[in-house]
């Protein structure tokens, strides 16, 4: 393969990773506040359909993305209301929503199947696009892809460098302490759940209006993406930079699968299509092994020199969730 083709492929990886970045960063913000929004898979499919529908109906990409974000925010608001106000199980509500939103998308999307819709093309940035390698890689993308890249740093800066970000960490780690410091835990949890949901809702139209244009019902090929985004949030240790790395790694591996499929024809295509999922299990295994008890016991039996090195390696891989993740906050 020549350099140009590889560069083109990698630019495609940045573009196809963009929706996963949006969804996983959105979920990261939500989970940092202590709420799990498990509805991602359904939310992405429903917002993909609604976004496409609105974009076709009004011939407007902007309105399409707006509709997607609105759907995501609405679904997240249900999660927030039922878990924060009504104190029901977040996992239960998220799971019901993920299934119901998917069915709703296939039901409502039936009449618009296969219709021609607007497509978001790339908007190269003058001057910057001419930089060798970096130009074609990062500066000849679509507007939403630029937004996804900016969002990574915005989210990172917000969480770790600003005062409200510190409060966000507080309500996810020790809500009681944050409350004493004057944080309105419930209101902030609502805010971050809905904000995160809106970002997840942008991922859907980004597929149907750009990455995989069009709505084709059950064969649109979006079923499973939301679960991958949830797994990437864990893999990324709830840190936006590492989360984005996970998303791009996933997109890269998918692209590699496509490339290999054409040259390694002896591997059935079904195997490569599901390859991300065993990979997901393996990576989760990798980042969680350090949290298991038997690992601690095993490490204790190793000689000192080896143990320190192994411990460092495991610690660098390990990811630990916000301490109050998934638990409701009660004001005493």
């Amino acid at each position, binding site marked *: 393969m020549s350099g140009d083709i590889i560069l083109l492929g990698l630019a495609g990886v940045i573009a196809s990773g963009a929706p996963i970045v949006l969804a996983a960063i959105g979920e990261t913000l939500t989970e940092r506040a202590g709420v799990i929004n498990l509805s991602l898979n359904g939310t992405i499919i429903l917002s993909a359909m609604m976004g496409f529908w609105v974009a076709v109906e009004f011939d407007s990409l902007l309105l399409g993305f707006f509709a997607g974000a609105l759907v995501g925010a609405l679904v997240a608001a249900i999660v927030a209301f039922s878990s924060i106000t009504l104190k029901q199980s977040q996992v239960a509500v998220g799971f*019901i929503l993920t*299934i*119901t939103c998917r*069915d*709703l998308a296939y*039901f409502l999307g039936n009449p618009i199947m296969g219709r021609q819709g607007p497509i978001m093309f790339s908007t190269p940035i003058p001057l910057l696009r001419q930089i060798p390698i970096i130009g074609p890689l990062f500066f000849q993308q679509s507007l939403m892809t630029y937004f996804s890249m900016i969002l990574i740093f915005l989210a990172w800066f917000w969480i770790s460098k600003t005062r409200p970000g510190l409060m966000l960490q507080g309500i996810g780690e020790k809500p009681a302490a944050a409350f004493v410091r004057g944080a309105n835990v419930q209101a902030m949890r609502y805010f971050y759940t809905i904000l995160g949901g809106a970002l997840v809702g942008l991922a859907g139209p980004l597929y149907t209006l750009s990455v995989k244009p069009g709505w084709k019902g059950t064969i649109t090929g979006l079923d499973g993406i939301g679960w991958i985004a949830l797994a990437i949030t864990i893999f990324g240790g709830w840190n936006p930079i590492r989360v984005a790395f996970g998303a791009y790694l996933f997109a890269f591996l998918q692209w590699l699968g496509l490339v290999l499929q054409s040259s390694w024809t002896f591997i059935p295509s079904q195997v490569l299509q*599901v390859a991300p*999922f065993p990979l997901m299990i393996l990576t989760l*295994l990798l980042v969680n092994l350090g*949290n298991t008890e038997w690992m601690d016991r095993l490490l204790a039996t190793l000689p000192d020199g080896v143990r320190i090195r192994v411990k460092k390696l495991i610690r660098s891989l390990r990811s630990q969730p916000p301490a109050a993740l998934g638990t409701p906050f009660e004001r005493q």
Partner: protein
Amino acid sequence: MKQARTRSLSILFQLGGLILAFGFVTLILLSIDANPAEAFRLIWQGAVGNSTRIASVFVVWVPLVLVTCGVLVTFTAGLWNIGIEGQITLGAIFTTGVIRLFLDTPVHPVLVIVLSILAGMVGAAIWAVLAGLLKVFGGVNEIFGGLGLNFIATALNIGLIFGAWSRPGVASMSGTEPFPEAYWLPTFQNFRFSWYSIALTVVGLVVIYFLLQGTHFGLRLKAVGKGIKSAFRLGIPTWQHMLLSFLICGLFAGLAGALQVVAVYHRLIPAISSGYGFMGLMIGMLINYQAIWVAPIALFFAALNIGGIQLPIVMKLDSTLTGVLQGSLVLFILLMQGVKQRVLGNK
């Protein structure tokens, strides 16, 4: 007196959830200019309109009850066995494998059927325990482990249908070559409905009811589900109980998958689990994990599934509408439960 009052209030709130769910679906239908009354009538007629349809409802009822029984065990242990879909699929694969193994041998078909069902149960149990092992020893949340295993099971299934077990000539989405009739579970008259399946399902229901309500094991599982740390301090071997609950759930999922092969399709098809696993999880939540309600609610869900088939034929609507109805039913009843707790104070 007080207890009776709380109970009737509970029913009132559940009824509210039911009305909200139907109201929500009505709104959706109105928003796309479809006649809601006509749609609900079609679903009802589609489920009970004639004896073939009623028989079909029971064909769906069998796997739904079995799967729900299974997930009640994992729910009791506080586990989310989302891998149930893959477990059903593995059950069907193992069953098909064993029948294929004995097809041209002198072994009596009845023995082959029994063996194949047992193999299906074992295969699904292996898949379930795998998710359990990942959870217990790998720290991988059972939701993600199970989900990944679901996708792998689907790939394995499709790989077999289009590869090693493909039909001679053309491999297709219609599945593997159907077995000779001797290897079918006998059906009632001309319906796809088998008394053997129903009998096995009733046995499963009874087993689960007594296991969870009347045994020491059920009590210990509940303790693990309520709080793993305190259960451990009480001297309950916690991770062993978690693995065991996965194993039991797997056996039930495997039985469901096996029956889909030997009693319903008589071959392996790509969508062999038909989403019944996820529906079982929904039913489990809807009935608040009480085994006594499994049979009637599963019957209701099965009727919706079969009734929904008429929607695309008559009204050109997608049959996923019944999925939306089922989902919003579970959601609104759960929400109303939260509202009740908020209005009446604790519990």
